[in-house]
């Protein structure tokens, strides 16, 4: 599954998810809820870009 990078540099890795905010490991970026925000800077999903490779 693809990793996505936030404008602040945080990388969402589906393999680890975001357990602190109730996101199970194995959750793809596209499956994240619409109101999920970057755990580092608080930006919404549209501030993320798919990473190469």
């Amino acid at each position, binding site marked *: 599954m693809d990793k996505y990078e936030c*404008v*602040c*540099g*945080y990388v969402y890795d589906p393999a680890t998810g975001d357990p602190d905010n109730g996101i199970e490991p194995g959750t793809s970026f596209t499956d994240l809820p619409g109101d999920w925000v970057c755990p*580092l*800077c608080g930006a919404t999903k549209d501030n993320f870009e798919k990473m190469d490779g």
Partner: protein
Amino acid sequence: MYKPIEIADGIYSVGCRDWDIRDFHGYSTYEGTTYNAFLLLGEKNILIDTVKEKFAEEMLSNISRIIDPKKIDVVISNHTEMDHSGAIPKVMEFIGKDKPLYCSKMGKKNLKSHFHRDFNFQVVGNGEQIKIGNRTFAFLETRMLHWPDSMFTYLVDDAILFSSDAFGQHYSGDKFFDDEIGDEIIPHARKYYANILLHFSPRVQALLKDVGKMNLKIDMICPDHGIIWRDNPSKIIEAYDTWSKQEPTKKVVVIFDSMWDSTTKMARSITSGIESEDVHVRLMNTRKWHRSDIMTEIIEAGAIVVGSPTLNNSIFPVIADVMTYIKGLRPQNKIAAAFGSYGWSGEAVKILNNEFSEMKLDIIDEGVKVQYVPEEKDLNKCFDLGVKIAKTLKEKLSKR
């Protein structure tokens, strides 16, 4: 301009004092601020951070009292915000555009977005240790403390932490060290934390834990604003630990504005109710207090109470300003309640409650709203609300 100060062997503070600034991007700076920069002499001459663009000449002049600024070999940028990077283009032109500029990965990206030119970027990673000339540095990425590019530079040999904006204070005076100014500096440091770092408190907690595990010896902390912590750096570290835990205390902040003094009367009655329970209270009229001073009072409070008249079916604009500001800084672990006078529709209390709910504050009462001018029974209700807030807070504190 001041005589550059040797803060350790061959290490000088060469930054500038901005005596005049009173509004730092919406933060009130009654005593101005400083933009600290540090010159480290050695086999390689190193400059850590710079100053606001308009102080570039002054900083170069400070440096020239020690060495010819052209002899600077390396620049380290801990933070891209323009009060610290503004002079970088001028410095690089002066010392030679090809000289290395050390920064974090996000620092490179952000410096490019600011100055739209390439420098000889040398990106350093989290925990990376490198030798520059005869000095050894370790770099610590401190993302979102308080920008994506933020990092700390730790000078291993001298155990000095160049901490960027962290541990800073907006204060400009003739004192440069914690031992010279004493506890007088703490309210400035608290205000800085409340207005710049509070919303990143979980990151501060994580960082303090990481630094604790690393067993890092810290003899001196050099922030980019205000005084240097050389006598007792652990004092400010402990203060950051306390502030970032956001533990509530027996204190309530009542924030309000008013059109015809009706909401003022309500605010005063609520305040009396709180005081009757021996709980500390601060009553703050939003047109008399700057938002950044209100924020500073809030960080140690256990409850916030907000009063707004209803204007054009909404909350009062000055209250909206303050609420937007408070909300962005994400205070936690607080009790909240709303009140306000209104003419006909009276939406303000409901809007404030919605704001509290989004802020995840603990709303303990539906709030008190009064049409037009409060009479005695209304003011008694306000007094009772104050009592309820104080009692609930005391009960909450007793359980912690």
